[in-house]
């Protein structure tokens, strides 16, 4: 059983979750006091609260659930927490893609990002943010009849539309591509890397 990553407050590359505690002016504190619970809807307070988060505050977030966390720290923050956890819990096809990229000399963190935020609520499985290139790895659920009948294609269309709106190029690699067409996929990824890294590979 893979150990859980709960409570691990590593910073990582969550650009939206600042690691530096912010300082609040006395005027700001006074304004927040006057707002009462409404301060949780204030974006400055959300940024301030996020910057002061701790392992304990994350644990409390889990205790209270998504909605309470979103209310207190902002919806983006709650979504970022889940994205970070997904990064620590890759699916089997995602692990295979990591392996394939490693064979091509690309390392996570140095050369590409995982669960990178493209837009609120949309995170790329694999991303090269500088060139706005993403790879989405579709596992078994994407091809399962059960999910195909329950709106999966429409959801993927919506995601693709977001990528396009944000100016990203997205490549889709399926579980089958990785299992049965690995050499072809490797060649595709080599081309993708060449574009994503400016032809440096």
């Amino acid at each position, binding site marked *: *059983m893979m150990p859980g990553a709960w409570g691990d407050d590593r910073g990582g590359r969550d650009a939206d979750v600042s690691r530096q505690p912010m300082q609040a002016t006395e005027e700001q504190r006074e304004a927040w006091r006057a707002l009462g619970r409404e301060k949780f809807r204030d974006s400055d307070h959300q940024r301030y609260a996020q910057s002061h988060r701790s392992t304990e505050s994350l*644990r409390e977030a889990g205790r209270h659930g998504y909605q309470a966390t979103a209310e207190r720290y902002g919806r983006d923050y709650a979504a970022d927490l889940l994205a970070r956890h997904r990064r620590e819990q890759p699916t089997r096809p995602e692990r295979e893609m990591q392996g394939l990229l490693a064979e091509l000399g690309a390392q996570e963190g140095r050369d590409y990002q995982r669960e990178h935020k493209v837009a609120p609520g949309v995170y790329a499985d694999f991303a090269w943010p500088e060139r706005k290139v993403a790879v989405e790895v579709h596992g078994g659920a994407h091809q399962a009849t059960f999910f195909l009948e329950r*709106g999966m294609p429409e959801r993927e269309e919506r995601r693709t539309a977001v990528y396009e709106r944000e100016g990203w190029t997205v490549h889709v690699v399926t579980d089958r591509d990785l299992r049965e067409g690995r050499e072809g996929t490797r060649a595709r990824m080599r081309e993708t890397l060449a574009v994503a890294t400016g032809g440096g590979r």
Partner: protein
Amino acid sequence: MKGEIMISATEMTVQLLDGDTWERGEIVIVGRPVILQEWFRKLVEWEMHLAVMPLSRITGGPYDGGHVLMAVGDARLYFAVPAAAIPALRPWLSDRDYAELLRRTTR
């Protein structure tokens, strides 16, 4: 058990959720409820493991007080699990995850 209603594992159900929607913080049910033991069999069949997410607690609705757990294997699936089912999850979770789930559940 004094004053507590024990629900047998044959009665407890979990519920698959729409993953996209859950990742945005909303709970939308997909498909039918699945009895706990059937769910466990499916997880074995699908070679999935369970993980406790940083945010999991459900407030309101039929799973009030329960948790959303992530199953990871070929894909990532999310399930609403009632609080009463947590002791049955002990073999499926790391010590740390299990303790955390209990801590989050204790009122």
